[in-house]
């Protein structure tokens, strides 16, 4: 039950009752150092779980009273009136905008990031690979507000004509139909900016795992008469797969929760606008809705409504991570 791929508290703590988790792998000894370190690791693990649980409980506790008074369907409505005696609020719009912009971001960032990582590790000559890798690492550390500003001021105006063109030509598809939102404050554009923002993360982490592909596997493939691309497919990609999944999940987590860049770019929709599922619609994400209205947290009821929205985001990221973990675990027998 011990994991080799990573330290996982969740794997260790619910061990069989008759054996303490510390001795699970039979390597634990009774030495003082081992016991101290083992205890510290176990304590840290329990602390993390406790913290996550407490955060969840806190959100729930704050949200429940507001939810109880809500007169609209929380999961189905897109109204957002949180004050007064008859609050009506729902998260459909937020959920849609958050998930769709993040999915657009992933659809762009993962393939491009993996491709760039493959280029850096497998194709680029050494004089180029090193600076390129450093540059990507550097980009991964740029604060998101910079991406937001750049998206708003520089990239947005350049993107607009493309969007207009797409709307004109492909407006027949419901997802691409024309909307009243003008300019670059659309879900599509947020997705693209988020993609650019998380691209360095995906690239940097994928590059790291690809670079660790054992030479023996690569040579094994080459000696069978694989071309470079076939070698990548038989040796590098399978080896890097769990790493790429983790990288994507990290990036997805960041895209889902990205606040400031989204907040300054997106066009919020006025209360009575007709809803459209188009990617060229505006809308708010969980994080931007909460950030945009921070000054409204003045009563428990109002704050509770926003916290309820935050709770959904919390659960969403939780599910994403769980799914990633399952995918990685399923392949584990083949990766050790």
């Amino acid at each position, binding site marked *: 039950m011990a994991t080799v791929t990573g330290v996982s508290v969740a794997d260790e703590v619910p061990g069989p009752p008759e054996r303490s988790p510390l001795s699970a792998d039979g390597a634990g000894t009774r030495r003082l150092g081992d016991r101290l370190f083992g205890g510290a690791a176990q304590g840290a693990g329990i602390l993390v779980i406790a913290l996550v649980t407490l955060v969840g409980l806190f959100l729930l506790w704050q949200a429940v009273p507001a939810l109880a008074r809500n007169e609209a369907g929380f999961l189905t409505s897109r109204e957002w009136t949180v004050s007064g005696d008859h609050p009506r609020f729902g998260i459909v719009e937020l959920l849609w905008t958050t998930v769709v912009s993040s999915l657009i971001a992933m659809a762009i960032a993962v393939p491009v990031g993996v491709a760039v990582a493959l280029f850096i590790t497998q194709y680029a000559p*050494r004089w180029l690979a090193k600076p390129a890798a450093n540059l990507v690492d550097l980009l991964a550390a740029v604060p998101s507000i910079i991406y937001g500003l750049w998206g708003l001021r520089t990239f947005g105006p350049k993107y607009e004509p493309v969007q207009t063109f797409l709307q004109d030509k492909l407006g027949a598809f419901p997802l691409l139909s024309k909307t009243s939102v003008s300019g670059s404050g659309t879900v599509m554009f947020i997705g693209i900016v988020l993609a650019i923002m998380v691209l360095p993360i995906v690239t940097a982490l994928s590059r790291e795992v690809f670079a660790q592909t*054992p030479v*023996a*596997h690569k*040579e*094994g*493939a*080459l*000696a*069978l*008469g*694989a*071309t470079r691309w*076939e070698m990548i497919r*038989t*040796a590098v990609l*399978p*080896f890097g*797969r769990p790493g790429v999944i983790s990288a994507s999940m990290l990036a997805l987590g960041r895209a889902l929760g990205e606040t400031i860049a989204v907040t300054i770019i997106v066009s919020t929709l006025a209360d009575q606008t007709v809803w459209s599922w188009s990617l060229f619609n505006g809308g708010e994400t969980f994080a931007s809705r909460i950030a945009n209205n921070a000054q409204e947290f003045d009563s428990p009821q109002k704050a509770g409504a926003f916290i309820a929205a935050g709770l959904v985001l919390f659960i969403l990221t939780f599910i994403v991570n769980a799914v990633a973990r399952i995918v990685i675990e399923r*392949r584990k*027998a*083949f*990766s*050790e």
Partner: protein
Amino acid sequence: MAKRIDVSDLNVYYGAFKAVEGVTMTVEPRSVTAFIGPSGCGKSTFLRTLNRMHEVIPGGRVEGKVMLDDQDLYASGVDPVAVRRTVGMVFQRPNPFPTMSIYDNVAAGLKLNGLKGKKKLDDVVEKSLKGANLWNEVKDRLNKPGAGLSGGQQQRLCIARAIAVEPQVLLMDEPCSALDPISTLAIEDLIGELKSKYTIVIVTHNMQQAARVSDRTAFFNLAATGKPGQLVEVDDTQRIFNNPSVKATEDYISGRFG
């Protein structure tokens, strides 16, 4: 099927470092040729030039000629990928693809060659595993990971993988050095069987092994430390072990080296 290898005046470099110098030799088809010599004398390096794996290493390059029957492996316009499909290789450490099942490991090369169709693949996989004397041990768990086999089984899996694509030549770099005596014997027997179909070159540090499995033996040596490795002599294994023409060979084989 098996082909003859003719090497003339081959120099092998790692960047500016000349690792092997002036090798001229012939490897006969349908025979086993053993490369012996002290560590660092360039056996692996030279072996890897025979299927153009040497150039995979950054800075690796070659001067001279390697002929496979009448094809010059290093002529311009020759695709190294095609060369490696003709000249297979087994490495010192078993290196099955860890993410693939036993079946997929054997089928990996076939799929690269574009062989399709479940039935055809099944047939070749079975034939190759039988050819590598592994079939009986794994036939019930073809879909289990290849990395779950023992070291000796993994090495035979790698041999199966190499012979599945029906190469003309099989190069083996110390294929038994990580294995126990029983697995070693199994692989030596296998080499004896395979030589009826393939040209086999094997690098070994085990003199008995060279004497047991090979028809011809090539002795490599370093002229001096820091100098490139050289081919000292190549002859029938019988002669090399009983009556070599160079004193250094006799010293090496009898353990009176240096």
